[in-house]
Structure formats: structure tokens, C-alpha cells
């Protein structure tokens, strides 16, 4: 399987081309085609999972070709444990999201074409090992997202889409500045991320700090971290279900992925300096702030959106601790949050499809009406609460365990959020699913086969990873330990030391 | 090659022809005269090409510009103007700002010309004349074969495009010009 990463990235693109050639009216064929073009990447992801060498931190399945030689831009693809996990998540969620989009009636052709473009962009982002290539994929992803929210969204879709676009664009600009800074700092100029990492020891502290900040803000918008988070609730509320799933499941991970992929190995000194305030303290604040905000929401999707903010805080906190447990927990949490939040959004989408609103106080007693649905939902909710035996427990425990070593005070604050999380989750559960049956929805049909097909795999993964987390931990451990050691062992380059300490 | 004095004289003559033609193009109020001045300028440029040992290009210049472009221009002039009002249709506007801008640009160019580090052959290396037609042929079918082919596509599309654009449309009310 040479070039597997290229195939995984470009097969959806081919699918987009095929869909563009199909007649506008053939909606069913278009849906099936879209589904058909997301299945091969999923199978390849499974193959990757099976064949990935878990014992080395080196990049695997590398591909390298010249692209624009005059600027030394290359086409480099490759994965390590960190990215392969994210690719798995992407490949898993895409077919599920296509299934979740089955009910889209407006502009079917455009929708699925854009979706496949988005798929290609996302996979590319996680595969790319050339910063320029990464940036291209990053931007490729942005555009379909804008249209998918702006055209197929809810009432205030244009507002949400523009907000999303501007925020993300601002992040991209900062990222580009950092990219160019790294490019020109290195001699010969290069975008090759492996070289950029290898040369990390030569970057001066000042350079690292500024580059780090630019990159961090770019990624923090994506995570989204506290002051930059307000695009998320709006985007989630307006976006169609599948897009919310992608947004929460994959796009948010790109922020933390970026920090681990760029900030950590390339700018280790700055990471040492910044980790406490920018990652640990801010992450903890995210956890508590997101949870408290979630508690006050009246829209189901908004609640889930704020819970995402809260849960992504664990990722930030975990990676900031720079303990083996914390950083592994952070990436595991990325994966788990991807599956669990995807479930939550899909589940909210199921009732939204039927009732066409998402007000928490507008339902009641759905458990009596839709028992199977409620069963799956309880799994998702308790997983989100970090119930032991389900996947998020492992990652949260690892993160908090790492956090305690790093700063007991932060760990205590962060851990207190488990109470808040239980609070808002159970509160929503009670108001929507329990209680007397709301007559208006007394005849709501239970989940159908399509919905079970898209929910069941996620539920199974959530349970399996709770019992056997090493399915993912084995993938990531080696790579993350290496990244972590890079940061921990970083020393300032000789040139920036005071002269008198030189021999 | 002639002696230095003669070549300077030729240069001055040809430059005068070129720039004079240019002046005619820009200052003539009659568009037909402008077109004819343009021809003079083109010929002067062709002469400069010859002085610069680019005889093939000079030939192309004469053939394409003088023979083609200029004739085309004249056709256009004829097609778009009633004979009687040719004179009034070549008015200028805003001469002063235009002159200022052009002079500013000229000054800028002169300045750039002075300071630019031209990549010239090292001192003492004699200039080698080469058979320009043959070299151009080799270059066009060698290093530049792709642009060359692209150029052919461009020309083809221009051909088609020009036909499409200037095709008379039946329903067009204003077509009944006395062109």
C-alpha cells in the first residue's frame, strides 16, 4: 500500500469530481456516491491502524516529492501516532456524517461535493508534513465549511458562517505569519516540518516566543480557547447536524493537533515558557467556564457546544502538564471527545429532524416514546460525564493525573468540573428525556435503521475504549513520549547564552 | 559592424524615428495619422533590432506589426468611424495629469536605469555574435517548446474569439452602419 495517505486524501476529491459530473436531480445516486467515496478511506484507515508500527516515533508511510522547487515547497505526507489517531477519527466520522446528511434536500449535489472537499482537506491536514502543504489543506477545509454552514444552516446561518470564517481566517493569517517566519529563519529556507523540528535547537528564545504566540492564537481559535470561542456556539447552532459533528469531532481537534505538531517539537523553549498560562491555566479556565456556561443554555446544541469547550480544556491541560500521562490523556481525550461529541450532536440531530426545534424545555418524556434512542443517548451522556468503563473516563483520569503532578491546585479546579458536567448533562437528560410524556411528541418514531447504523459504531467504540484504551494509547504513546521529551529536554541555543558561560 | 561613429549616428537616427513616430501617435488629433505615425515608430524599432543583431525579430516586427497589426488597426478605424467625423473622434482628455504621470514614470525609469545592477558579462569578455534565427529556432523547439505550443493555442483561441466577437448579429439594430 504505497501512497496510502495520498489515496486517503484524494479519493474524496475524486468523489467530488464524480459528483460534480452527476445530474442535479439524481439525489439518491449522489448520496450513495458520496458514501461510496468515504468508505475506501475508512478501510484504509483500518489498514493503517493494523499496520502502523507502534514502536517508533518516526514518521511512517512517508511520501516525498518536489512541488514548487523554487520555493523549496515539497509534497510530504506521513503519519506518526498523533496524526494517525486523528486520521482514524476523520475517516470514521465522514461516512457517519454522510449518513447523517441523508435528509438534506436542498442542493444535494453541492452539499455532498463540498462535504467531500472538506473530507479531503481534513485528511490532508493530518497527513501533511510540509508546512506549506499543511496550510493549503487548512485553507481548503475552511471554504467548504463556510458554505456548508452558510447555505445549509439554520436561520442565522449567514451570520454564523461569516463569524466562523472571519475567526478562522484571522487564525490562518497568524499561522501563515508564523509559517513564513519559520521558513525564513531556517537556512536554507524550507517548509519541511521534519527539518523545522530538527532545527528546533537553533531557534532563539525570542523568536520562539513570538512564533509560538502567533501559532497558538491561530490554533486556539480552532480549539476554541476562552476568549476566541464565541464562534463555536453560533456555528454549531446554525450548522446542519453532520457539519456540527465534523466541526466538533474533527475541526476542533486541529487546534490541539497543531499545537502538538508545531508548537511542541518546533518551539520547545517557548512551550516551556508558555505552557502554564497559555495551556494549563487557560485550559482549566476553559473546563470550568465551558461547564458553567453549558449549564445555563436552553438550546440542546448550544449546551453540547459549550460542553465541547469544556472538554477541549482537558486536552489543553493534559498537554501542558508535560507528563507522559497528561499528554497521552490529552490525545486520547481528543479522540474520545471526537466520538462522544459526535454522538451527542447526532442524537440531538435525531430529535431535531423529527421536531424541528432543539429547546431543552420543549420536550419531555422522550424515554417513554423512544426507548432505543434513549438507551444510546444514556451511553453518550454518561460517556461525556466521564463515567468509568466508558472511554472519556480513561482520558480524563490520565489528564487529571498528569495535572496533579504539574499543579495540584489546577487539578483540583479542573476535577471539580466533573460535578458541573454531571449537573448540566443530567439536567438536560431529565428535562428532555425523562418526566411526563409531552403529548405533542407522543408519537415520535424511534430511531430508524440508518440512525442506528451511524450511532452504534460510535457507541461500541466508546465502550471498547473504556475497557481497552490501549487500542489508541499504544498508537500514540511512543510518538507523544518523544514529543514530550523534545520539550522537556530543550535548552536555549548556544548563541543566545551569555558569553561567559561558553568555554 | 560599422565604426563607432557610424553606429552612433544610426542609433540616433533610428531612435529619432521611433520616438518621433511615437510622438506622432500621441499628439496627432487624427486617428488615421496616428496610425501612420505608429507605423513609422514600428519601423524605427525594427531598425533598432537590426542594430542589436536581432535580424529575425526585426523581420517579424515588420511582418507582424507593420503588416498585420497596423492594417488591422486601420481596418478598425475605418469600421468604427464614419469617414466624415474621423477627425473629431481622436480627442484627448486630461493631458496635464497624463503628462505628469508619464513624466513621473519616466523619471522613475531613468532612476532605476541608473542604479540597477545590470547583469553584464564580465569585463574583457568579447561579445560573441550568434546566428540569431537558428538560435531562436532551436530555443523555440527546445527549451521553450511548451510556451511555444501554448502560444499556438492562444493564437487559435484568439482567432476563434475574434471571429465570435466581431460576427454580425442579425438582430442587432445598429449593425446597419455604412462600414
Amino acid at each position, binding site marked *: 500500500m504505497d501512497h496510502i495517505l495520498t489515496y486517503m486524501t484524494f479519493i474524496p476529491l475524486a468523489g467530488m469530481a464524480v459528483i460534480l459530473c452527476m445530474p442535479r436531480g439524481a439525489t439518491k445516486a449522489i448520496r450513495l456516491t458520496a458514501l461510496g467515496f468515504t468508505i475506501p478511506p475508512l478501510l484504509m484507515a483500518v489498514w493503517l491502524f493494523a499496520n502502523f508500527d507502534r514502536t517508533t516515533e518516526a514518521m511512517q508511510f512517508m511520501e516525498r516529492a518536489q512541488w514548487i522547487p523554487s520555493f523549496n515547497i515539497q509534497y510530504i505526507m506521513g503519519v506518526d501516532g498523533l496524526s494517525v489517531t486523528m486520521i482514524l477519527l476523520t475517516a470514521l466520522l465522514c461516512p457517519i456524517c454522510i449518513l447523517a446528511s441523508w435528509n438534506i434536500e436542498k442542493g444535494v449535489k453541492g452539499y455532498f461535493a463540498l462535504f467531500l472537499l472538506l473530507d479531503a482537506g481534513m485528511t490532508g491536514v493530518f497527513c501533511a508534513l510540509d508546512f506549506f502543504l499543511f496550510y493549503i489543506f487548512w485553507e481548503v477545509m475552511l471554504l467548504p465549511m463556510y458554505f456548508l454552514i452558510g447555505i445549509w444552516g439554520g436561520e442565522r446561518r449567514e451570520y454564523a458562517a461569516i463569524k466562523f470564517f*472571519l475567526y478562522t481566517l484571522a487564525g490562518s493569517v497568524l499561522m501563515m505569519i508564523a509559517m513564513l517566519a519559520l521558513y525564513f529563519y531556517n537556512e536554507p529556507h524550507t517548509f519541511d516540518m521534519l527539518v523545522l523540528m530538527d532545527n528546533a535547537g537553533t531557534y532563539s528564545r525570542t523568536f520562539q516566543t513570538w512564533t509560538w504566540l502567533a501559532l497558538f492564537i491561530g490554533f486556539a481559535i480552532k480549539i476554541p480557547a476562552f476568549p476566541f470561542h464565541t464562534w463555536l456556539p453560533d456555528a454549531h447552532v446554525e450548522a446542519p447536524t453532520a457539519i456540527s459533528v465534523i466541526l466538533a469531532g474533527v475541526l476542533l481537534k486541529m487546534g490541539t493537533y497543531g499545537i502538538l505538531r508545531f508548537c511542541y517539537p518546533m518551539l520547545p523553549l517557548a512551550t516551556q515558557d508558555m505552557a502554564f498560562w497559555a495551556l494549563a491555566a487557560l485550559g482549566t479556565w476553559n473546563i470550568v467556564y465551558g461547564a458553567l456556561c453549558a449549564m*445555563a443554555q436552553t438550546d440542546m446544541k448550544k449546551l453540547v457546544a459549550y460542553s465541547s469547550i469544556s472538554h477541549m480544556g482537558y486536552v489543553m491541560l493534559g498537554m501542558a502538564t508535560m507528563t507522559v500521562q497528561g499528554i497521552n490523556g490529552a490525545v486520547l481525550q481528543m479522540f474520545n471527545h471526537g466520538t462522544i461529541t459526535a454522538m451527542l450532536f447526532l442524537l440531538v440531530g435525531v430529535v431535531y429532524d423529527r421536531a424541528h426545534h432543539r429547546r431543552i424545555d420543549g420536550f419531555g418524556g422522550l424515554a417513554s416514546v423512544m426507548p432505543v434512542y434513549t438507551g444510546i443517548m444514556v451511553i453518550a451522556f454518561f460517556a461525556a460525564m466521564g463515567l468509568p468503563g466508558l472511554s472519556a473516563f480513561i482520558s480524563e483520569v490520565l489528564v487529571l493525573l498528569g495535572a496533579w503532578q504539574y499543579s495540584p491546585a489546577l487539578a483540583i479546579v479542573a476535577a471539580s468540573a466533573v460535578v458541573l458536567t454531571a449537573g448540566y448533562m443530567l439536567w438536560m437528560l431529565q428535562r428532555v428525556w425523562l418526566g*411526563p410524556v409531552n403529548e405533542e411528541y407522543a408519537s415520535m418514531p424511534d430511531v430508524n435503521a440508518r440512525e442506528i447504523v451511524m450511532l452504534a459504531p460510535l457507541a461500541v467504540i466508546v465502550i471498547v475504549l473504556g475497557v481497552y484504551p490501549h487500542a489508541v494509547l499504544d498508537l500514540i504513546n511512543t510518538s507523544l513520549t518523544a514529543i514530550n521529551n523534545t520539550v522537556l529536554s530543550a535548552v536555549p541555543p548556544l548563541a543566545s547564552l551569555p558569553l561567559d558561560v561558553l568555554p | 559592424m560599422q565604426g563607432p561613429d557610424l553606429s552612433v549616428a544610426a542609433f540616433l537616427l533610428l531612435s529619432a524615428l521611433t520616438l518621433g513616430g511615437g510622438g506622432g501617435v500621441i499628439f496627432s488629433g487624427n486617428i488615421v495619422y496616428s496610425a501612420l505615425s505608429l507605423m513609422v515608430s514600428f519601423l524605427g524599432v525594427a531598425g533598432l533590432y537590426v542594430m542589436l543583431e536581432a535580424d529575425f525579430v526585426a523581420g517579424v516586427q515588420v511582418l507582424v506589426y507593420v503588416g498585420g497589426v497596423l492594417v488591422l488597426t486601420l481596418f478598425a478605424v475605418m469600421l468604427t468611424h464614419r469617414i466624415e467625423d474621423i477627425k473629431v473622434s481622436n480627442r484627448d482628455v486630461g493631458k496635464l495629469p497624463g503628462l505628469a504621470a*508619464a513624466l513621473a514614470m519616466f*523619471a*522613475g525609469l531613468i*532612476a532605476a536605469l541608473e542604479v540597477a545592477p545590470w547583469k553584464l558579462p564580465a569585463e574583457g569578455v568579447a561579445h560573441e555574435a550568434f546566428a540569431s534565427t537558428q538560435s531562436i529556432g532551436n530555443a523555440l523547439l527546445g527549451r521553450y517548446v511548451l510556451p511555444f505550443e501554448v502560444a499556438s493555442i492562444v493564437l487559435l483561441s484568439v482567432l476563434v474569439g475574434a471571429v465570435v466577437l466581431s460576427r454580425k448579429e442579425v438582430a442587432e439594430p445598429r449593425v446597419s452602419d455604412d462600414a
Partner: protein
Amino acid sequence: MVDPHHAAEVAVHSSQLLRWIPFIPLLGAAVNFLLGTRIQSRAGRGGVAAVAIGSSLASFVLVVISFFSLLAFDEHSRLVIDTVAPWIHIGSLNVDIGFQFDPLSAVMTLVITGIGSLIHIYSYGYMDDEPAAWRFFALLNLFMFAMLTLVLGDSLLLMFVGWEGVGLCSWALIGFWHQDHVNTTAGNKAFIVNRIGDFGFVLGVFLLFWSLDSAGQATVVFRELPALVGGLDGMLLWGVPVVTLITLFLFVGATGKSAQIPLFVWLPDAMAGPTPVSALIHAATMVTAGVYMIGRLSFLFAMAPATLEVVAIIAAATAFFAATIGIAQNDIKKVLAYSTVSQLGYMFIAMGVGAWAAGIFHLVTHAFFKACLFLGSGSVIHAMHHEQDMRRMGGLRHYMPRTFWTFLIATVAIAGVPGTAGFFSKDEILWNAYLHSPALWFMGFLSAGITAFYMFRLVFMTFYGECRADEHTREHLHESSGWMTWPLVILAVGSLFAGFLGVPAALGGSNAFAHFLEPVVGHMEHSGHHSLALEYGLMAASVGIAGLGILLAWLIYVKKVFSAESLARIGGGWPHRVFLNKYYVDELYGATVLRGTMGLSTLFAWFDRTVVDGVVNGSAYVTRIGATLSGVFDFRVVDGLVNLTADAIHAFGGVVRRVQTGSLNTYLYVIVVVVAAVLFAGTWK
């Protein structure tokens, strides 16, 4: 990963059988969850009940087999482990999914599966008109699984899986009749309050882990801990010995799960669940998890005398206050609930004074009589058509004699009448408490009297006197079916005779129970020597006060020598009001913690929508947006920055579009000027 030094002392046995003790109920739960509706529609309620009861009994049989094989081992090598699969191995954290069976787990699992099976059987009778019986039985089985994981898990993390798992099942079973918001609210309250405890528990685990890490080797596996915790001596965090901090954190977890002050508030509300659930979860098993946890980590708690003081004081206070609240309750299950809280207090007193075995002993005897009491009350409630107010009962002994007699036996046991189970276990605790501090003993002593009083008050109000139920109910009053009464009989027998497992030496026994547990929980020696006479005296005193309580109840509720109303008016009526309203603790929490959190949440949400970027945008912008959006809450100032950017770009575009004149000349001028400028700039020396 067994410490070699430790391994040399204790020969470790391993058995693949162990895993099936929790897994069989899990299997039963899975079958009933996935196929329950189908089984129930084909084979009726009996089908799902058979699956549940069968798996529970199978588990019980396995426990008994394991127990006897354990007895066959030498006293100091009674440890069987079963490592199922690797779980988390990251850095120095190495945890497997593994179970361990030692005397302490044996006792716990016997109680859980034994009493659990009886309650399963009882439930079949109790839930005879329940359409969602499959869900009930599935959840009961799931609870069994979680509880067995809690007590069998060989590491703190696996224990925590069970710890939260029982919380989940408790939530689901309290809110089993989920159409009524009262039930689901009670479930939520239970879960959230427990979460507060769990929060403390995990912090304790983290602190333990990292402290051990800095002391050399980190672990959370129980069998490795005793050899390593010695390294924690003298270690400080925030100026406090870490052992004290760890145990305090863990004890916070215990107060949540075992309903001690200050986290006891959820347990009385939890009575909203079906009565078998109250018996199984909120009396016999789950609520004792905290006691078990301290017993399991007794070696750690023994290192932290300060924590033990805290445990003992909180426990004594809980025992006393819960008992006083019990006096004033009229809901039959609420009385039992407060009695449970109070009895759990006894167990924690034992833990707090280092009498580990005594605490566990009381746990066992309490499981018998309290399960019997709850199931008996369930039988009454079932017969009374879900009426729980004792003021509408009375005279029931004529209608349901078997329920009455078993209930009476259990009441006698809890009151501590000599010879019954409660007598032995309670006196063991009181004796140890006295050795530690007479004040502690006095609190327990008083509580014993109050317990006897309110328990007999319950019996008299329910089973004696005139029947105060309405006509319709009275007509249908009947003894419950054999499915319900036989478990009662078995539990009543247990309540009478379980005490003989641990007859103290003073009464000529050998305290076999304590000896059985000793290899696990150890024994804390008390300084000083006390005479047998003192022990007898204390026993007599507690028997005396219990008798006094019973007599008082008899005088008031049977003989009506004093009216209950006049008693309620004592002291201007406020003591009664305070007891009746549970010391207003719920109101206090509601006004502080709950209101505070909700207020903070509203504030943050408002802050998020309104203020985050208000500073940046300035009030003018807020006003402008505010005018266009509907409500005050739509001020959305955070969005402001983004909108401002959009507006700025729009305005800028408005200016810039003038440049777009459509006139080629203008464009050209611009180009020329710019190029000329660039040329000049580039050539400027």
C-alpha cells in the same frame, strides 16, 4: 508487578473463576438490556426475572465456592487474584483489569450476592405489575456487576469503576419510574452529590499515586500498596502530612457514597426508587462502599490518626443527627433511610477508632436487618397500594402476619436487643469507641437509644392499633406472595443469628469474624487495659437505653400515655420542626451551593454573551447591536468584535468601491503612480 518482598510473605493464588463473579451479572444485564423486551413479550416477566435471578444466584454460588477455597488456604495466604486483561499502562501508571479475593472481599461479596439474590427474588414479587420489568432487572444485574467490581477490583482505579458504576445504577434505579419528575430529580441529586464525593476520591488517588511516585514506586494496586506506603511517612504537602491529605480526600469520597455529613442529603431522597432498590442499594450494599474502602485501605488510614479523628467525629455526629431526624419522619421509608444514615455512622465510628473488623461486622449484620426492614416496608407499601405515610397505616399485623413478624425481628435486631445480630455488632463498636474516647461512646450510646425509640415507633404506628387506611385500601389488604415473604424470612433468620459470627471474648465467644478479617485489615491495639467489668457495664448500659427507647415508644404509640402531638410541642415545637425538616440542610445547600452554582452559571453565560468583548467594542457598538437584536440577552458582545470586523470591512469596502469607477483611466493612473512610487522608493539611496 508484585513487590518481591511482599510476595514472599503472601503466597498469591490465582483463579480464573474469580472474574465470573462480576461478569455473570454483567452478562445477565446485557441479555436483559438487549433482548429484554423480546424475552418479556414472549416469556413474560418471568423470563427476564429468571435471567436476572439466575445470574445473581450463579454469582452467589461462585462466591461460596471461592469462599470455601479461600478458607482452605493458610490464614496468611488468603489472597486469590485473577488478572483479566491489561487496562492502562502509561508511564509509571500500570493498572490491569484484575480482581482479588481475600477475606474482606469474601465477606463483601457474600453479602452482595447473597442478599442481592434474595432481593432479586423479592423483586419478582414486588414488580408484579411493572411493564418495564426487563429494564428493572437489567439494572439490578448491572448494579450487582458494578458493586462486585467495586469490592473485587484489585486497584483503586478499578474500584473507582465500580464506585461510579454503582452511582450510575443508583441514578437509573432511583429514577426508574422516570415519568415522574420527583423520582428523576432524586436520582440526579444522588448522582451529583455522589460526584462531589467522587471528586474527592479521585484527588485522593492522584495524591497517593504521585506521592508514592516521588517516594520511589507508584502504584494504585491494593496488593502492592502496603509494602510501599511506608515511604509516605514524613512527606508533607501544603504543610500537612500527605497521608492525612490522601485519606481525607478518600474520606470525602466515602461521605458521598455512604451518606455521611455533609453529603448525606441524597439518601433520604433516594427513597423515591422502588423499595427493592432501596433495600439493595441504599441499605445493604452500595452505601457501605465507603466503609469497605476504608477497610480496604486500613493500613493507610492507620497511618493518619488525624484523619481517623475526623472520621470518628463526623461519624458520631452523623449517627446522632440522623437518628434525631428519624424520630420525626412519617414516611416509612424515610425513617428507614435516616436509620441507614445513622447506622452507617456507627460503622464509620468503628473505622474512625481503628476497629476495622467491628465496622465490617456491623456492615454485615446491618445488611441483614436493614434489608429485611426495607423489604418488609416494601411488602407493606405494596399491600397499601404505594401508600408510604405511616399515619395512614396501623394494625397491619392482623392482615400480614409474616411481614409483621419478620419486620419485628429485624427491628429488635437493629435496636440491639441482646442475642440479636445488632447487639453483638453494635456493642463491639461502642466498646471500641469507649476505649478510644468516652465522649464518642456517649454519642453512640444516645443514638442507640433514639434508634430503638424511632424503630419501635415505626413498628407500632404501622402494625399496631387501628387501621387508619381508607376503605378501599383496607379491603384489598393481604399478605404478600411467597416470592416476597420467603426472602423476608431468610433475612429475619440472618438478623437473629448473624451476630454469632462475632461473639466477643467477653461473652465467651472467639470473635471468629474479626479473626477471619485480621490478615487484611489488621488490628489496632489500644493502650491500657480495661476490665471485663467495664465491658459488661457498657453492654448493660446500651441494652438499658435501648429498652428505655422501646418502652417510651410503647407508652406513646400503643398505650397513648402521652400524645405524640404534645411531645412535638415540647420547647415551643421548634425541636420537632427542626427534626422534621432535617435540620434544614437541604434548604441550606439549596441556598448556598446550588443557588451559588446556578447563579455563577447564569452569570458566566451572560458574561459570555454580553461582556467578554464589551471592553473592546465600546458601549456604542453594544447599543447598536442591541437595537437590532431582539432581547436584552441578545446583546452578544463577544460577537461584537467579529461583527465589528465585518462592519469595518463593509465600511472600508464602501470607501474602496468608489475607487472602482469603472473608468480604465483611473485604474491606470493608480497603477502608474504606484509603480513610479515603487521605482523611486527602490532607487532611493
